[in-house]
């Protein structure tokens, strides 16, 4: 038999394919991770603080304490993801060495490098990155990201930015598909996107990796909306454990994601959930408080 090959595109992108139609939940300890798994989460994101608390705390947000990540890895059998700062090679390597299943090079944390993202092909662990448009998504894919998610505006409980980012990417993909081949290079220049990635998208009719929604999802209907707009699945950060009743919220968001076009069912499962997380109007945030513009 031939030798096993690890860390290939198929193995990394395939891992993300297996998460499709599912919900990935932010957790800050083993107990929350178990609640998430029991509710049907396809993976958990182990963090020191959820994004809304990162906003409140201010200061520099960094990779979580490895103890928290290890506790979560020991508590559940679903994949465990963790975040490193944009461009922070050492944090990424530390997470990889711990056997984290997916690394989020995330704008939720304070960037370590304001010019360069990680070269993600160098790693055996797969990466997910945020994107606001097709240019950003294609650059991250070019660097080796195995999964893309909208940035949204994390920790706000406000879906408006995630909707904007999802619609933008979808519209730009559609536009690309309608172009003749001789127009693609100019489009690559205009988007700041690698030409080869755009050619792959054109051939496949969609991004070569899955595209999840993230950043502001707070209710079952928010999750269903993002699925309707073409998301392959959803990340829920502060939305679950900042809600009044996390167990119920978690279960309802999972079901609304699976049955996103069954509105009677969503009506039923949205009843009596209790208070959702308190949201923020994104327009009241100062420029330096916005997370989505981080990354380049």
């Amino acid at each position, binding site marked *: 038999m031939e030798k096993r090959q690890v860390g290939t595109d198929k193995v990394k992108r395939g891992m993300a394919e297996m998460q499709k139609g599912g919900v990935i939940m932010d957790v800050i300890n083993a107990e929350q991770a178990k609640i998430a798994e029991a509710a*049907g989460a396809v993976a958990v994101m182990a963090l020191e603080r959820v994004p809304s608390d990162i906003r409140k705390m201010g200061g520099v947000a960094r990779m979580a304490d490895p103890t928290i990540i290890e506790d979560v890895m020991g508590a559940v059998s679903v994949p465990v993801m963790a975040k490193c700062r944009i461009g922070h090679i050492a944090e990424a390597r530390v997470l990889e060495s711990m056997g984290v299943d997916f690394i989020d090079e995330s704008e939720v944390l304070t960037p370590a490098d304001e010019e360069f993202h990680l070269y993600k092909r160098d790693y055996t662990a797969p990466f997910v990155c945020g994107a606001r448009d097709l240019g950003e998504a294609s650059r991250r894919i070019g660097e080796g990201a195995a999964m893309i998610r909208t940035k949204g505006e994390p920790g706000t409980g406000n879906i408006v930015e995630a909707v904007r980012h999802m619609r933008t990417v979808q519209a730009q993909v559609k536009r690309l598909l309608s172009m003749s081949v001789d127009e693609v290079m100019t489009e690559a220049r205009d988007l700041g996107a690698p030409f080869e990635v755009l050619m792959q998208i054109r051939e496949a009719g969609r991004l070569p990796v899955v595209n999840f929604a993230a950043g502001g999802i707070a209710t079952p209907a928010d999750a269903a909306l993002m699925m309707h707009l073409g998301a392959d699945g959803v990340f829920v950060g502060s939305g679950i454990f900042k809600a009044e009743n996390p167990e119920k919220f978690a279960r309802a968001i999972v079901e609304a994601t699976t049955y996103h076009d069954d509105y009677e069912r969503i009506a039923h499962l949205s009843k009596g959930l209790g208070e959702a997380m308190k949201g923020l109007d994104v327009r009241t945030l100062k420029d330096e408080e916005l997370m989505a513009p981080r990354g380049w």
Partner: protein
Amino acid sequence: MVTIGVLGMQGAIREHVRMLEALGAQTVVVRSLEDLKAIDGLVLPGGESTAMRRLLDRYELLEPLRDMETLPMFGTCAGMILLANEVEGYDAHLKKIPMTVKRNAFGRQVDSFEVDLPVKGIEEPVEAVFIRAPQVARVEPEVDVLAEVEEAIVAVRYNQYLACSFHPELTEDLSLHRYFIEMVKENQKQYA
């Protein structure tokens, strides 16, 4: 013409649909009891087995699927776990194949791999992608072992059930799906 359902809770659903359709089968994405009526075979896709199980329970599909005695089923990765009579350390699901599976038996995602794999009954080696994959720890003698990776069992057939630890749906290799469609056709003849 055969109609094959793909269990549509979560995971690599569209990949299986694409491959089955490339082989001329009709497909139905199965998300309710109603969807089970018109199908000649069922694919249980890769995904997260715990998440799928929660949804099967909540939407009362588990018992009806357990009770189906003649429907051919093909499980890949998480689907293989769903088909096993026993799952090490966890509750079993559909209990269709007398075997015990071990979840995440090759390790975490950084240990996931691909390999060209010889499979009994298929001429060319199969392009096999293993992602946090299970292994078959034990089988009853009546189960036909189709493939092994370094002595770990990774593909089996038992009557009208086919299961593999890897993901043919992530490749362009149609051979296992072709094999399953032949099984479905044989099954149709038997119950015609």
